[in-house]
């Protein structure tokens, strides 16, 4: 997919583990794992809002568009 999730980068910047983020945001670890591994098909604004608040970042820091070669 052309949308890349940079959640691991932001987590590394904040020196936060996925479990900690899960506890802060109130999203299950499995759902965050789906997001982190790029398997997610969609993300709710609520989730994005909670992650951005927890990591003190902008949506653009987590999501990135890269032109897919196939497209």
């Amino acid at each position, binding site marked *: 997919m052309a949308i890349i999730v940079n959640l691991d980068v932001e987590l590394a910047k904040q020196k936060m583990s996925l479990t900690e983020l899960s506890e802060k945001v109130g999203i299950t670890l499995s759902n965050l794992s789906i*997001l982190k591994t790029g398997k*997610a*098909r*969609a*993300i709710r604004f609520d989730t994005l809002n909670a992650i951005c608040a927890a990591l003190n970042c902008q949506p653009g820091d987590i999501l990135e568009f890269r032109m897919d070669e196939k497209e």
Partner: protein
Amino acid sequence: MNKNKILSGLLIFGLGIATFIIVAIGIQLVPLSFATAKANPEIAHMRVPVLIMAWFILACILAIVVLAVALFGRIIKNKVFEQKSVSLLKAMGISSLVPIPVLIALVFYTMNNVAGSITNLWAFFGIMVCMMASIFFFLISSLFQNAVDYKTENELTV
């Protein structure tokens, strides 16, 4: 246990009985074919081919029943909206299509060997039933495919 699961359990029980009946009919076809050939010696040469065709059609019906049991089993296990269910429904659709060439062969075989037989009417009726069943199974499998896609999309929405 919810109502749907109870209904599925009852249907599995019914399909189990249907399996038993189909096997019993399959076994009874042998003496029936002998009796028919004895009573009508002019069509005795058709006994073996028609018996084989009848067994083939029964085998297809049995396959559909077994696949239906597997599908209802998935309903009980709460695994109904998965790709496997779509595959089972497609297999049921294909199993419904398989008897059609056999029935067409039966029509031609009867036309060439028996004058004025009403077997062909039953064969045409069978072809229609098989086609309708096949269309139904493929339609349901297509609907299931959409449901599986929606479910996957929903599960992968974080």
